[in-house]
């Protein structure tokens, strides 16, 4: 099972974790990404996440499937939020369960690293002093997808 979703509403990490797990699984890993209160020493009040929604849906699903296939982690769930988030809000939750801990940690790490380099999502920080700015990101390469879509 590989579940993925891009959502506007708040993420409940406990519910994401509850989607994975099985009798034969001795390990479960939950990763949460949280909006932090500073960027390069500048106090942050919140972040607006923009997404190319139909593509982000597809890319997130592909990342989840790849993680499952690569690490043999049986059950994996990833939920990414977009819209206006405040400091302390969960922006992403990744839950993986597997027979043993190594696959669960590795699959979880794979998902968050691939999100950082491929998911068409952008964030604009709002600063306490009133300014705002797009966060410098990673340039995805064409190799991140396989050629022309249809």
């Amino acid at each position, binding site marked *: 099972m590989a579940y993925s979703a891009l959502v506007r509403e708040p993420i409940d990490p406990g519910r994401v974790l509850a989607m994975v797990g099985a009798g034969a699984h001795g390990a479960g890993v939950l990763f949460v990404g949280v909006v932090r209160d500073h960027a390069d020493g500048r106090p942050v009040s919140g972040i607006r996440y923009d997404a190319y929604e139909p593509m982000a849906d597809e890319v997130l699903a592909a990342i989840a499937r790849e993680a499952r296939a690569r690490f043999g982690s049986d059950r994996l769930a990833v939920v990414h939020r977009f819209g206006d988030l405040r400091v302390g809000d969960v922006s992403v939750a990744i839950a993986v369960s597997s027979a043993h801990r190594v696959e669960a940690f590795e699959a979880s790490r794979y998902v968050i690293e691939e999100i950082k380099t491929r998911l068409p999502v*952008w964030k604009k920080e709002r600063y306490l002093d009133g300014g705002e700015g797009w966060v410098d990101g990673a340039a995805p390469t064409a190799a991140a*997808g396989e050629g*022309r879509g249809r």
Partner: protein
Amino acid sequence: MPIVVRTLFFAAYRDLLGRAALDVELPEGATVGELVVEVRGWGHPFADLPERPAIAVNRRYASPEVELGAGDEVAFLPPVAGG
């Protein structure tokens, strides 16, 4: 016969151009790279787009040599920052 593609601009590119989408007419057989050259050739503010932005064609990342077809959805994607 010329073709028309739908270009989309996100995040910093949308702010730069002041628009989210635009239809662009191109010669038949035009590539992603040729579309970028065409759009950047319109002068300010389009010339401020990077020479080799990340591009997705119909929601998949595409390299500059990919050929475009009528009605394709071509997205200009700034460096991504999810997570």
